[in-house]
């Protein structure tokens, strides 16, 4: 059982608190990704789990065993570092067998395990090379191989793909996902790249300033962010935010007014909010459409359009100095400076109160 429970974990350097009380439950065989902006504490959290950082208070329990005070080697986990941290003077075989040799495993078993890992990672023909003779992707695989041979309860990855070029990163991402299925192991992965987080994770942990903002499956985070931070962090291009004011509510509907004067009615219960409250409307690029200026939700001036082939991102300047990024079909031709209308899919829109917390939509409450 490789179930990892973290209770009220705190870590501070002097007066600066890096982790401000982390509670997390990672299930067996789960692929969990910690994601957040740099400095949010995600790497510190991972290193605390690994035992490379001493925690100030709190508890880490792995498979029912309290490992908070244990040395890294006694925790039964393996880590893949951002710089790979291969031992430069050892060949690939030795790099992978090092931990087993230290543990006093007999030679035949070591040989078998290294061979097995090399086969899984397609490293068999490279076993006698030194790390300096390997490409970035191969080094990455050796680093993973070094973790695999130990059959740890939990694999930890610290931004393992950030040193690779874009094409290789996509390839390694797929390989990691495949590896997770093949090994059926518990994996914890740290990244600042939300695409990696969304594609790899069973569950994503969004962190910000030493706190967990939200834990959920990629689609949960995408569709139901609990606050404005998560909403803005997940999804590219970013969700657009427009300040608004509540002007009325009735039944299951809430009416808000945008700075430009337009009124919008959203499916939200008006119970938790009073008339006149400041709110923020959040809407993703794919939930807006460019329409003719007449009877649109909003009008604005078309700025730059970016053609990606499959999609076109249109940047629309609206009143109040805000820019909306609208996702259109790949064949959309916009003219710079044109006055266009923007229509919202209000059933998919998000509403945040002045604290940044999401106001639950009626449809979700029903679901």
């Amino acid at each position: 059982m490789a179930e990892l429970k973290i209770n009220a974990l705190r870590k501070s350097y002097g007066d600066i608190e890096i982790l401000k009380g982390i509670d997390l439950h990672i299930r067996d065989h789960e692929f969990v990704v910690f994601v957040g902006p740099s400095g949010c504490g995600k790497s510190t959290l991972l290193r605390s789990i690994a035992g490379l950082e001493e925690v100030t208070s709190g508890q880490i329990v792995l498979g029912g065993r309290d490992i908070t005070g244990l040395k890294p080697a006694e925790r039964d986990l393996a880590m893949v570092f951002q710089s790979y941290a291969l031992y430069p003077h050892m060949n690939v075989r030795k790099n992978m067998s090092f931990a087993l040799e230290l543990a006093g495993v007999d030679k035949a078993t070591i040989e078998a395990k290294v061979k097995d890992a090399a086969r899984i990672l397609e490293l068999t023909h490279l076993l006698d090379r030194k790390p300096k003779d390997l490409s970035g992707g191969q080094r990455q695989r050796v680093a993973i191989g070094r973790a695999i041979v130990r059959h740890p309860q939990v694999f930890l990855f610290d931004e393992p793909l950030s040193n690779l070029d874009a094409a290789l990163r996509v390839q390694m991402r797929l390989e990691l996902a495949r590896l997770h299925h093949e090994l059926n192991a518990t994996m914890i992965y740290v990244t600042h790249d939300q695409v990696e987080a969304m594609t790899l994770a069973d569950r994503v942990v969004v962190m910000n300033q030493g706190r967990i903002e939200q834990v959920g499956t990629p689609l949960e985070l995408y569709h139901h962010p609990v606050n404005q931070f998560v909403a803005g962090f997940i999804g590219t291009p970013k969700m657009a935010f427009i300040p608004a004011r509540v002007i009325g509510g009735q039944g299951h509907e809430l009416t808000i007014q945008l700075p430009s004067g337009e009124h919008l009615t959203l499916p939200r219960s008006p119970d938790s909010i009073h008339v006149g409250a400041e709110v923020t409307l959040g809407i993703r690029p794919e939930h807006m459409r460019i329409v003719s200026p007449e009877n649109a939700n909003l009008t604005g001036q078309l700025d730059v359009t970016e053609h990606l082939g499959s999609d076109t991102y249109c940047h629309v300047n609206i009143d109040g100095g805000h820019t909306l990024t609208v996702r259109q079909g790949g064949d959309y031709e916009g003219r710079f400076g044109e006055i266009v209308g923007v229509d919202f899919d209000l059933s998919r829109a998000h509403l945040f109160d002045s604290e940044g917390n999401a106001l639950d939509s009626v449809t979700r409450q029903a679901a």
Partner: protein
Amino acid sequence: MTIQSCDLNASVVPMPVSNENSAASAHSKAQRVARWLVSPSVLVLLLWMIVPLSMTIYFSVLQYSLLYPGEHPFVGLENYEFFLTDEGFSAGMSNTLILVGAVLAITVVLGVAISVLINTPFPGRGIVRVMLISPFFIMPTVSALVWKNLLMHPVSGVFAWLAQVMGMEPVDWFAQYPLSAIILIVAWQWLPFAILLLMTAMQSLDKEQVEAAKLDGAGGWAIFRHITLPHLARPIAVVVMIETIFLLSVFAEIFTTTGGGPGYETTNLAYLIYSQALLQFDVGMASAGGLIAVVLANIVAFFLVRLIGKSLTEKH
């Protein structure tokens, strides 16, 4: 497709060629100028090397003693024969090797140990580092005198006082263990050099490598043995090379403390040559000795380069 690309090449090629020609001629002209400008200093360096060497070779085949002015008859290889069969030679030879070997061993072992120890942060690390390096800035003659008169002196030395405090007989270092005393002094002088190089090397040790080893289950000793030492192999090779070059010609420390004695016990090759030339005024024999020393140094250098040069040129 291939034909097209060939055509393309054909139409494009002439331009760069003409450019290259002019570039090449400009290049060779620049090279000629450079050669002329460099030649005076090369010539001076050549003379600087050739003149003393040929003079030494010339003197080494003469019977040339300053005590007997006048004729300097040609004696062939007699000087070499005398020098090699002199009882001082075998002593000087072994003393040189013992001195070099022992000082290398002490400085490398202690150097590695100290640089690993001071690599972990602790209060006052900056001051400790400066203090560790400082013996290197003291002149060999001065430090040898300090060791001789203030530390190792059997009556007024600190070591003698210490021994007495502990209730032991003071050691008369330069009478009882002369060569060990010299080794101690020279090692003290060269330890900072080893520390300086190894300390800097320690700072470039990848922290993630050490962390990876920790996760792999390596304890302090295993990390030192499998991560730190291999990382330090190159700087250690540099320390050994450079120190060997300087330690083969240790002189001031011997001159100011023991004067090569008692007997030949602390006479190394450099000191032996000095005593031939300037104590016995035999220029011919000293020259022969000098040339033998040069040959020996080259033999040592050859083996050193064979032994550790490979690890220096190998790229990480």
